[in-house]
């Protein structure tokens, strides 16, 4: 794959894996409203993934579509950031992951609407409205849990503390990002960091939560170096295509 196809692939993989993770809550959430919310966010993410992965496959030009890319690749071929593949943990940990990621995704998609690639820009323009909703939903919960009971507060702090080490990867610019940026197609992710910090800090302040302590960042997802969790996620997500390759209905 060339840089532009890889760029689209990464966007699709982030959405796909987060969507799959959030979908795990379906039928298990603490309240019906939460169940609906998380399932809806998952649906949005998987919808975005479909568009990005179809585009990546078209740019690659080897006959792979979104389904093929989602279900017929192994762990090391996935390019999602390590944050989105982290296990759901408890509800607070799930919210922490969505909170950190959705604000990044909203800023990213906002900038991506100016991409010279009209297809990427169109998907971003469509998706950014949904992502804004996700960021608001997650922020509301961070405040409710953080400024809630002793128990909810402790869990929110623990959730954020765990997820925080995966944040830096979101803003890393490697050769694929640099090439996409140079072509006027990609986004300067490093430039999003200040706005992201501001948003996150504002919510943490409202939630009366401390900003998590800096940790050694965990990187590697973009080049296929994943945590052990992704393999387990894929074995469930890809079960059908592994058991019955090429099955359709």
């Amino acid at each position, binding site marked *: 794959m060339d840089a532009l196809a890889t760029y689209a692939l990464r966007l699709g993989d982030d959405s796909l894996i987060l969507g799959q993770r959030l979908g795990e809550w379906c039928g298990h959430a603490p309240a*019906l409203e939460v169940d609906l919310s998380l399932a809806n966010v998952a649906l*949005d993410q998987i*919808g975005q993934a479909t568009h990005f992965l179809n585009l990546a496959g078209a740019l690659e030009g080897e006959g792979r579509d979104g389904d093929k890319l989602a279900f017929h690749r192994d762990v090391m071929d996935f390019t999602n950031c390590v944050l989105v593949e982290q296990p759901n943990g408890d509800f607070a940990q799930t919210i922490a992951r969505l909170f950190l990621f959705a604000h990044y995704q909203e800023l990213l998609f906002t900038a991506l609407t100016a991409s010279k690639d009209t297809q990427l*820009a169109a998907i971003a323009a*469509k998706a950014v409205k949904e992502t804004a909703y996700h960021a608001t939903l997650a922020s509301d919960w961070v405040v409710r849990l953080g400024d809630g009971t002793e128990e909810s507060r402790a869990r929110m702090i623990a959730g954020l503390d765990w997820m925080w080490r995966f944040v830096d990867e979101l803003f890393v610019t490697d050769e694929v990002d640099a090439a996409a940026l140079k072509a006027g197609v990609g986004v300067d992710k490093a430039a999003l960091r200040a706005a992201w910090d501001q948003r996150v800090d504002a919510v943490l302040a409202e939630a009366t939560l401390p900003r998590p302590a800096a940790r050694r960042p965990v990187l590697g997802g973009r080049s296929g170096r994943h945590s052990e969790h992704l393999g387990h996620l894929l074995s469930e997500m890809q079960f059908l295509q592994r058991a019955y390759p090429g099955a359709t209905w």
Partner: protein
Amino acid sequence: MTDEIFDQLFQILASVPDPEIPAVSVLDLGIIREVSAERVVITPTYTGCPATLAIEQMIRKALDDGGFAHVAIETTLSPPWSTDWISDEGREKLRAYGIAPPPKGAAASALKNVQGAECPRCGSSNTEEISRFGSTPCKALWRCKACLEPFDWFKCH
């Protein structure tokens, strides 16, 4: 394209209901972007809307049944669909069906600063949000504090 064919195509499209909110047609929803003798262009409401495929299949069947099997269906993402494209007639149909229609002038900011939805039952704006996400991706769940009925609100998008 003659006016007659154009009218026929519109009549056909006006008869295709949204699969999740059958009170409104695909035309009312504003997801039909272009109609010509060669093609009908549609746009999805939400990227993950599970009804997208069903809508396309329903339109396909309606066109085939109406003798327009040669008219192709194409999908476009840009410009992105907005609830502003729901027709005035569609808004009234939603209200009569029990779903509060979205306010017009849907800016992205409307997602964050939700104004009180108007109760489709009694018209009161003394309402509150119960759940930001409802039974379908396009709806939120609200409650009327005047008549105490819960209701769906078509989210501003």
